[in-house]
């Protein structure tokens, strides 16, 4: 089966600019996650969707970050305006299960550099 797809793979922007990332999960996976992975750290969950509803967005900086999952399939994550500290790899993952214990399948990530 096809894996989790993400685009773009790399993005360089200046601070205060906007950027959007796209994720297409594995077909049939109801749960979709966006993580932020800063260099030298483990991934941090930004938002979790169950179909097209938000399950957890407690760690999403809502003043600048937004995400949507229209029709319960692919998803976009947006940053507006970007700050230097947003430089990180943004990972998308999906799982078939409704609870955290199910295996998560990760995409290749988008490496964002904010200058």
């Amino acid at each position, binding site marked *: 089966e096809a894996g989790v797809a993400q685009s773009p793979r790399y993005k360089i922007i200046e601070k205060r600019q906007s950027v959007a990332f796209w994720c297409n999960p594995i077909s049939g996976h109801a749960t979709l996650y966006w993580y932020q992975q800063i260099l030298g750290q483990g*991934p941090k969950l930004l938002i979790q969707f169950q179909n097209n509803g938000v399950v957890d967005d407690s760690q999403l900086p809502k003043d600048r970050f937004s995400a949507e999952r229209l029709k319960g399939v692919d998803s976009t994550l947006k940053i507006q305006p970007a700050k230097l500290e947003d430089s990180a790899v943004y990972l998308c993952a999906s799982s078939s299960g409704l609870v955290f214990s199910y295996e998560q399948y*990760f995409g290749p990530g988008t490496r964002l550099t904010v200058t």
Partner: protein
Amino acid sequence: AQTVTQSQPEMSVQEAETVTLSCTYDTSESDYYLFWYKQPPSRQMILVIRQEAYKQQNATENRFSVNFQKAAKSFSLKISDSQLGDAAMYFCIWGANTPLVFGKGTRLSVIA
């Protein structure tokens, strides 16, 4: 709040040898899961092994096994017969609900 500590930022192992990666965690929960995921260079993160806290038997997956010590809150990963393809960043992860709690990772190098 739950925490996961991986005290070895980097480790190396000779090909065909055995290596153990350490992980400790802190939680007051009694029912939870523990995971090891690997993240090869420039490749997707994938699940290596999973352990349910209520199970006393240590999980094994081919060359990968864990030593789960619930009372000590320890969850180490043993890789036997190491292969070049095992070179990656390994994350120890704790979960009882979302969000999962990740350690900072251990970078494993395999020497031919």
